[in-house]
């Protein structure tokens, strides 16, 4: 490491990373904050923002958001824990694998898919509710929103718990059993306490994601307005920048607090890496009745997840699912004949360009943080993480405000999408690469230096090959995230570049649920095809959470 410290390359790297984040992240967020604390003449004045929250509606929006975040985080965490416990302790073999992959399915869903099929299944014309049981239901509002968010976000908790459970040393449970503890007692006194960091991490991450979620509140929230959707509607419906800024600033606070609380309390343990060395021994199975209870819950949810996915497909291939179930390709014809094809190529192109850049930014920052002695290097870590911690809509608003005037007049160009994508997804790449770097014993790099290699050679020949997989998985994650994000780009779309998620929103707004489903299907196919191909070509990359 001394070789690297003496290497001016580290300083140059630090400058480059600093410039990139200042431009792509710092400047946009400064624009949002600027609008929040300055009046129209540029004087410091917070009165306009404060005045907005003197009205009851915006206040209700704040309360709604926090309520939704807390409830979704609680439910998502518990469900994720139930799934992890089931796959680790209640089922084996092919059933385990099936449950595992079904639990991961919602991670690759574009933001609307689940809400859309929920409307198909449980809506006013719902296939299940009205069609099967003749119930009058209304999913629009907090209930529907929570249902969709729980299904959308529980996989995050599942991944966290799954990794932690796997790292548990079975010898501990055997020891407890050997000392006379019952199975229930082992769960209560050994397993759950050891997973405590997982509960904190899962709750906080889902809380942040739930607050930042734009698609579901727009689609299924009904009159239940939250901060993210209100900020969006303030711009799109009322052209009221100040109001959007007000909602954004208030949205930032709990998001950042929760996010960084998670980082500080839970640290790297929430990053999914498999480091546990099994010391032999067998994990203890659960008591029979508890096991059955778990299986009922997770089995039902798994069936529901599959059903929701099939419903998207069904919705895409029928005239109007639930009302006119004629099988047809019309939806696809409509989508692909219209601007759908443009949207497909545009979105894929922008996502693919941004992905490697995001991965490299993550790698550069991770290297800086873990392997150099540049003063203030941990600050880089926290600042880059802002890109994931800040809600997408806020980032989008910042980019909108920052780049629609000189000196960086970029609105309408591909560049602003790429900036948005890179800033938004570099944090995941940063986390995976930091985890990978931390696992490389420093003696490997020292051995290289000891054999006569300079810092650059050591990086190229030793470090890079060893973190290659993490960088790659960062890039793949970035690509899928870019393809499926709505909140970050919702405010940036112009006729120049078409983005699929934004098109889906338009279709659903226009009550064309069928073509919305067709779009969603195409999006899922593109993402799956890309992930599978990349994994084939470059070797298996794990799915990562943490952003």
């Amino acid at each position, binding site marked *: 490491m*001394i070789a690297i410290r003496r290497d001016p390359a580290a300083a140059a790297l630090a400058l480059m990373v600093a410039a990139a984040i200042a431009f792509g992240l710092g400047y946009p967020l400064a624009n949002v904050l600027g609008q929040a604390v300055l009046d129209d003449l540029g004087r410091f004045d917070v009165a306009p923002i404060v005045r907005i929250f003197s009205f009851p509606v915006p206040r209700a929006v704040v309360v709604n958001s926090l309520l939704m975040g807390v409830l979704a985080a609680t439910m998502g965490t518990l469900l994720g824990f139930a799934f992890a416990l089931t796959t680790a302790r209640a089922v084996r073999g092919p059933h385990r694998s099936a449950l595992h992959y079904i639990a991961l399915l919602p991670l690759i869903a574009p933001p609307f898919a689940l809400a859309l099929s929920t409307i198909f299944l449980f809506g006013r014309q719902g296939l299940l509710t009205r069609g099967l049981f003749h119930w009058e239901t209304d999913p629009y509002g907090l209930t529907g929103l929570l249902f969709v968010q729980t299904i959308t976000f529980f996989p995050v908790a599942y991944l966290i718990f799954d990794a932690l459970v796997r790292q548990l040393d079975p010898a501990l449970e055997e020891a407890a059993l050997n000392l006379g503890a019952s199975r229930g007692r082992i769960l209560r006194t050994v397993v759950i306490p050891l997973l405590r960091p997982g509960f904190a991490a899962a709750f906080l991450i889902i809380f942040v994601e739930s607050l930042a979620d734009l698609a579901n509140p727009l689609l299924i929230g009904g009159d239940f307005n939250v901060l993210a959707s209100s900020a969006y509607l303030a711009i799109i419906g009322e052209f009221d920048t100040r109001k959007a800024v007000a909602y954004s600033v208030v949205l930032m606070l709990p998001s950042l607090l929760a996010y960084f609380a998670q980082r500080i309390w839970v640290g790297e343990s929430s990053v999914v890496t498999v480091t546990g060395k099994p010391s032999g021994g067998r994990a203890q199975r659960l008591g029979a009745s508890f096991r059955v209870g778990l299986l009922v819950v997770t089995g039902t949810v798994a069936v529901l997840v599959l059903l929701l996915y099939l419903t998207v497909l069904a919705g895409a291939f029928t005239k109007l699912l639930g009302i006119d179930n004629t099988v047809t390709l019309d939806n696809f014809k409509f989508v692909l004949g219209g601007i759908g094809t443009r949207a497909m190529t545009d979105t894929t192109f922008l996502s693919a360009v941004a992905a490697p850049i995001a991965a490299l930014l993550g790698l550069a920052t991770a290297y800086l943080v873990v392997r150099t002695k540049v003063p203030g290097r941990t600050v880089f870590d926290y600042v880059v993480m802002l890109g994931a911690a800040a809600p997408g809509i806020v980032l989008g608003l910042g980019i909108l405000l920052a780049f629609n005037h000189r000196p960086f007049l970029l609105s309408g160009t591909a560049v602003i999408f790429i900036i948005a994508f890179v800033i938004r997804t570099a944090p995941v790449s940063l986390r995976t690469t930091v985890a990978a770097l931390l696992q490389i014993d420093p003696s490997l790099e*020292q051995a290289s*230096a000891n054999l006569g290699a300079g810092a650059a050679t050591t990086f190229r020949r030793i470090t890079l090959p060893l973190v290659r997989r993490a960088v790659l998985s960062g890039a793949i994650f970035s690509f899928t995230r870019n393809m499926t994000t709505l909140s970050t780009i919702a405010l940036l779309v112009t006729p120049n570049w078409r983005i699929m998620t934004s098109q889906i929103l338009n279709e659903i707004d226009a009550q064309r649920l069928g073509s919305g489903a067709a779009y969603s299907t195409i999006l899922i196919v593109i993402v799956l095809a890309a992930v599978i191909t990349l994994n084939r070509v470059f070797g298996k990359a794990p799915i990562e959470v943490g952003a």
Partner: protein
Amino acid sequence: MTADLVLRHLEKRFPNGTVAVDGIDLEVGAGELVALLGPSGCGKTTTLRMVAGFEDPSAGTIELGGKRIDVLPPDRRGATMVFQGYALFPHLSVFENVGYGLRVRRVGGQALRDKVHAALELVGLEGLGDRRPQQLSGGQQQRVALARALILEPKLLLFDEPLSNLDAKLREQMRLEIRTLQQRVGITSLYVTHDQAEAMTLADRIAVMDRGRIAQLGTPREIYEEPADRLVAAFVGHANFTAGIIRGRRGDTLIVETLGASRPTSFAPGVYAEGDQVDVMIRPEEVHVVPAGADGAIAGTVVASSFLGGSALYQLLAGGVELQATVPMERGVPLQPAGAAVGLRVRDGAFRAFPAGSVPREGAARG
């Protein structure tokens, strides 16, 4: 022997205030292997890492072949290292691992292949070049690490507890191999270990370290037979201690009254005067167990006895002092059981006196 590696007043203070190395002076001759021996935490690794260039000394200098190297970056020092965990590159084959240093120096093609093969042959790994390090046994990995360090024909070879990951049997075998190889190649070496048997087998000279300083520097024999202080005595081999009083001086021996008689005793550096209390050390193999009541023997009792194969280990009590004795075993001769009364004999030259002091620290003595 001309000095090749020279450490002068070397010191290391870590930012947290720990003084890991507290002023070391050491000269290693050309082709010599010096072992740094000492309990865990005494500063061995830190010393080695300063020589390799992974830590900057807080004070002092390091010279190699007459040139200051402490000012050079680690990749320019010409001192290659065998790491504790071997630090083999997991993504490179054995061949590429061994050839790494040459590649970095832009050696390629046939020249590279020839040298790598020669190096693999030197350590007895012909034909394993295509394997990954993970596919080798611990001993083989150890040899790869050795080949990788030797191939560069360094001026100095550094070892940081290279055998600590191996099991006992392999460790003994590798000790001898390393020794043979090092002597064949004739390379100046600094070898860190906390295992005194390893240091004894391998080293031309041993530097026993204690709390960041060198407590004694000498050949294995000097260290064992003439330890400079109680700590060295206790760390290298087992040492029995009894109390004694100085009754006189004859040339370069003291006359010390201990175990019921006056005995000529060699002594460690220190200030001694008649009537002083001293601690007297006797090595276990110098305590001979004879039948009780034998002429001139010290009366003792067996506390415990155990059979070790070629020898037996006795715990004995004589005049209130606990003594350990190792005695060669002869086929058919029974062990004395616990409680048996025996006689003890110790050769006159086998006593060594130290200024009376505290009992050696337990943790330190174990290492």
